[in-house]
């Protein structure tokens, strides 16, 4: 299907926080409590619409286990957005956020939009991390924040879409060089031609206008 832009996302976070479940909920609209443990990386894709434009999200779902960390780093390359996930019922997954964030900042491009996600919000009774703590962490590190439940689908759409909106805005502001695929953004095939003439002037803003 034709798209105006393709954004590359990466989902990161400790093992067992629900990364793959979030992806599945977003791409397939279903929840599968028991699934294959991710080895290396999995992929998902979905089309969304922002500002009347078709945007394809290509999502890389990584293995959370420590020993995969070194190869996960190579997946940051060329990602426009990252979903950094922790489990609100497991304090340790929240405590590890700093390490994840360091990794992400170090190995990605500086404009990458990072969304902090406290997953498993349906398990209120087992909550170990307060929502305010998540918010505070996000504020402190300049992230967008949301609590989600891959199980009930609560906020899952919003998480992915809000991240995309943020990226889209950055494109509009001309922050991203959309002609450099290393930024995790690709212009759709039928739009590439019209954009090519425009980007010479002032990058994103006009590229957006050129797509119709």
């Amino acid at each position, binding site marked *: 299907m034709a798209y105006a832009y393709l954004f590359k996302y990466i989902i990161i976070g400790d093992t067992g926080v629900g990364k793959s479940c979030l992806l599945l909920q977003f791409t397939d609209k279903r929840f599968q409590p*028991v699934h294959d*443990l991710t*080895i290396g990386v999995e992929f998902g894709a979905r089309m969304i619409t922002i500002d009347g434009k078709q945007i394809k999200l290509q999502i890389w779902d990584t293995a959370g286990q420590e*020993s*995969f960390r070194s*190869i996960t780093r*190579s997946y940051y390359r060329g990602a426009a957005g990252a979903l950094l996930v922790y489990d609100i019922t497991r304090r340790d997954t929240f405590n590890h956020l700093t390490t994840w964030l360091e990794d992400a900042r170090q190995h990605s491009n500086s404009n990458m939009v990072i969304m902090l996600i406290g997953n498993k919000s349906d398990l209120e009774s087992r909550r170990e991390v307060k929502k305010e703590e998540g918010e505070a962490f996000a504020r402190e590190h300049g992230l967008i924040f949301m609590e989600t439940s891959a199980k009930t689908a609560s906020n899952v759409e919003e998480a992915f879409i809000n991240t995309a909106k943020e990226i889209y805005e950055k494109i509009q502001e001309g922050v991203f060089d959309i002609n450099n695929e290393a930024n995790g953004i690709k212009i759709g095939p039928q739009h590439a031609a019209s954009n090519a003439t425009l980007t010479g002037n002032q990058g994103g803003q006009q590229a957006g206008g050129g797509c119709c």
Partner: protein
Amino acid sequence: MELCAIPVDVARQRELKWLDMFSHWDKWLSRRFQKVKLRCRKGIPSSLRAKAWQLLSNSKELLEQNPSKFEELERQPGDPKWLDVIEKDLHRQFPFHEMFAARGGHGPFPELDRSWRPLEGKACVPSPEPAGPALGLEPQAFWCLVQICEKYLPGYYSAGLEAIQLDGEIFFALLRRASPMAYRHLKKYKIDPILYMTEWFMCIFSRTLPWASVLRVWDMFFCEGVKIVFRVGLVLLRNALGSVDKLRSCQGMYETMEKLRNLPAQSMQEDFLIQEVSPAPTVLSKGLAGSGCGRETTMAQQGALSRSSQSWPQCGTRGRGRDSAGGALPWQSRLAPTPEGAELQGVSTGSLLAVGAFPSAAVGQGWAKVLARGLRWGIQIVWRAMNAHTIGVGVWARGWG
């Protein structure tokens, strides 16, 4: 099971041949290794597979040398840190496994609070699962696992996964010869080997191939070692991306990855795959001839390898030299002692069990599938909970039907 297509009398003949080999195993291995190899390639009769895998991997000998080690380890307490991780993964991997379901399915597994202790001063080994007598882990399985981790795939499960990354690069270099078209395609879209081969190699295809093919691949793997893993991978890539026609449907990185995650069924089908991996000498593709992966040293030492293996780029001989403790593995008996892996690849040759971390569970997960499919006779591959320094897989080699 996989012998269904073979006439009964042929199957029986094969069994008799294997029984004869069992009774003079050492002689067969030292004097007629080519024949053993050929028979492994033809497929080990399922009724004898369990014993054959144990003999091929030398795990039987290890068990005999350490008769009560397994039980001893079983009695020791575990490290809570790793038990926690194990629990997390068990939960996701064995929801329906009778061993764990008996305890209320997804609940915690208090029985795991057992032991992890250094083995031979360098390694930590997992506690065996005390529950589940019917499917309980057997010492045979445990030692088979130790061999896989320490001898067959050293470093594959270690922190940082250097060995996997290294073999990924070697694999890619080999692909250039095995299928230039696939090579160029992957290069064009900047698809790193670790993106597709990690799961293949770490799980020895148990999460990828259909069951019958998994068994056949493992038959060869236990006999010939990791080079089989390389070959299977090359065959799969060649059949997925090896022609203009095949590439038409996957123009783009994502599309290509999709294709690699959904490989053509035919290319994974037992007969086809085995034929491609281990072709008769006459049908060898010229494109596969030669060495060319920087392993000439060891290759030179492998003069005794069969014609058909010479037709392949030399795969996977890194650091897999003769080992005094576990004894030489079958293919190693054809090798002079090789330099240690550390010198060759710059990674620690400490046993996997010493340096391993925890993709273990993931690996086990694939292998667990093998278990789930259940063989009445033959090998049960069982996920084994292990600590950070071990792989989480147990191979249970025992006919239990």
